[in-house]
């Protein structure tokens, strides 16, 4: 830091201390020792997991994302069918994506490119889809969260291609936003990995507050909710078009 910068820093800190000291002891004393104010909002809720999962599916689709419920063993087929449906030719995947997920793709001539972090932005732009896992999902808001962890890759991967297939295991769905934030805190604080909350495809309401899906991020978001094989999958549908 330059001397000039030191001076600016010192001056701002001095102004803050003068501003806070100028008032009577009241507020400062109330918070002495930086004890944090008590909070009474909900940090969890009592509903069973089946309700969370149903809410998650309903709310993701309300953003006009496509949601598909699949059994564990049905995932490779569902991914291939979705690629075919959207006429994808080349998809990029993080290099640690489970290869079993992709086993049906060669048969339908979808090229799979694994990104170990070396693809250029232009190369990513030449892929028409991306398949990732995620860190967790939030039922309350229909949000998926990526934290660059297992099967997710770097941020550019799920950003540049126009179609994002995101696979979430039903056990990864939490109910409320505070549960998600609590789970993500160590990622930010200790691992210092970037975190992205995704709620539907990119959208804008800038023209007369009309919601339009598909601006700069992926215009098409497909979320695959994976249920255990022994469980009946209730719905299997595409929401778009």
């Amino acid at each position, binding site marked *: 830091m330059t001397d000039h*910068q030191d001076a*600016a820093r010192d001056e*701002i*800190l001095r*102004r*803050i201390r*003068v*501003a*806070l000291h*100028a*008032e009577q002891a009241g*507020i400062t004393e109330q*918070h002495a020792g*930086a004890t*944090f*104010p008590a*909070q*009474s*909002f*909900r940090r969890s809720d009592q509903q069973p997991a089946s309700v969370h999962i149903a809410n998650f599916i309903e*709310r993701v689709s309300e953003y006009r994302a496509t949601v598909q419920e699949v059994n564990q063993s049905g995932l490779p087929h569902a991914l291939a069918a979705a690629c075919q449906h959207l006429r994808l030719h080349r998809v990029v995947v993080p290099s640690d994506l489970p290869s079993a997920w992709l086993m049906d793709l060669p048969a339908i001539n979808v090229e799979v490119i694994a990104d170990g972090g070396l693809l250029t*932005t232009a190369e990513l*732009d030449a892929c028409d889809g991306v398949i990732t896992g995620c860190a967790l999902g*939030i039922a*309350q*808001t229909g*949000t998926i969260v990526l934290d*660059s962890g297992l099967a997710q890759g*770097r*941020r*550019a991967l799920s*950003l540049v291609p126009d179609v994002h297939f995101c696979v979430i295991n039903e056990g990864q769905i939490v109910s409320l*936003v*505070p549960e998600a*934030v609590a789970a*993500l*805190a160590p990622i*930010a*604080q200790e691992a*210092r*990995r*970037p*975190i992205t*909350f995704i*709620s*539907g*495809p*990119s*959208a*804008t*309401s*800038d*023209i*007369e*507050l009309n919601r339009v899906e*598909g*601006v*700069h*991020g*992926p215009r098409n978001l497909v979320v695959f909710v994976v249920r255990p094989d022994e469980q009946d999958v209730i719905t299997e549908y595409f929401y778009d078009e």
Partner: protein
Amino acid sequence: MSTPSRSNIPPAVSPASTAVETIPVALPPHGHALPPFPVNARRMLGNTQLRRNLGKATTTIRAKRAAVVSELPDWEELREAGRAIKEHTLAHLDEYLLQLERSVQRAGGQVHWARDAAEANEIVTGLVKGTGATRVVKVKSLTTDEIELNGALQAAGIEAVETDLAELIIQLAQEKSSHILVPAIHKNRAEIRELFERTIAQGQQLSDVPSELTAVARAHLRRTFLSSTVAISGANFAVAESGSIGVVESEGNGRMCLTLPQTLITVMGIEKVIPRFDDLAVFLQLLPRSSTGERMNPYTSIWTGVTPGDGPQAFHLVLLDNGRTHVLADATGRQALQCIRCSACLNICPVYERTGGHAYASVYPGPIGAILTPQLLGVEQASTLPFASSLCGACYEVCPVKINIPEVLLHLRGQVVRAKQHHTGVRGTLAQATPEAASMRTAAAILESPSRYEQAQRLAQIGQWPLARGKVIPSLPLGILSGWTAMRDLPALPSQTFRQWWRSRPEQRQEAPRD
């Protein structure tokens, strides 16, 4: 700012109907006064297209907000938590800023401090120059609008490309933002279609379907995103304990800017720091529901310094004061710094809905602007803004962090009046006082004594005859008085006052007073 985002774009001609060019929007340097709100408001009220656009937009968004807020059984608890976190943070602002600085540095970022707009612009311009880039992509940021960063960059030969759709519209139209969340809220789809056909879609015939207009912007910006090496953003939150910065957005232009370039420069007001990562649990619920009326906005990016192999490999955080410590020094007015820029107070405000944002002549319009701008600049520089409100209190009710805007408005009105008294002298002669102060002092003298009061009533009963038409006075003479009757009638004094009637009752002479 009005830099066209590509040099081959001819300067757009602003539609005559908006007529906003002469109203400055970035905050002027300290000591310079804003144009008065009533003058601007009157001009804006004459624009019927603007009023139609705004009426439609604010009605829509109010309904959406109300619906998603009612979904949360703990909304009031969340508001209280939001307020308390912000109040607590402001009371320890120096400690939390120092903690943030350490955390960001530990995570590989660099921290810069800027006392005012000029210093911030100098820092950012220097950083961009250091990379050799001549173009930067920008995420929508009120703070950089406040300091007129785009103008400073342009002066240094650096093109700043706004990437938010509404900011792009404003930039192409060479206009100013009129809303903190949807800056082009004053323009309708037909106006945007014409603008795009003149600028980024020359030679094309567009429809005015919003999805098609949006696709034009996507195509226009795509290559710019993929090839830019420097991005500039604001920040919605900065977590002191972890050094994590959060940007909340919808379009993905934010993610593009925060992910693809090699260098990221974030400019944030010092009041945006929050203590703990856990506090995001509160604000990520309050903000989207209050601002766009969604359960969650499409994209929220949170990054912590520099992550090897992912995103920008150089990160600079510029901490901006620019009058904020001045606001902090006022124990009542300080709560304006709790603002998370959701814009719920604009959307609910009957004054904003009619005048639009340009009338406030500041990057911060609406009720929050009416309390923030005068404090950032000093009340004498924006003395009409605290009066730009009917004090109906709707803004306080919707505020997700419970800023008592009416309370601060009244507090600032008091400051404006005292500032005027200071100039004229409270104990000066009546001739030296402002017309308002002179009439208040005359009224005080009359109301002090019952006999003077009755004399004044008798005088007024006689004196009103040339003005009264039946039971009303439709128009008062004299400059300052005529304003009162410009929009309404004044009731005429009845031929008998209450006191006269009371005394004339026959029983009055026999009854003893009951109390």
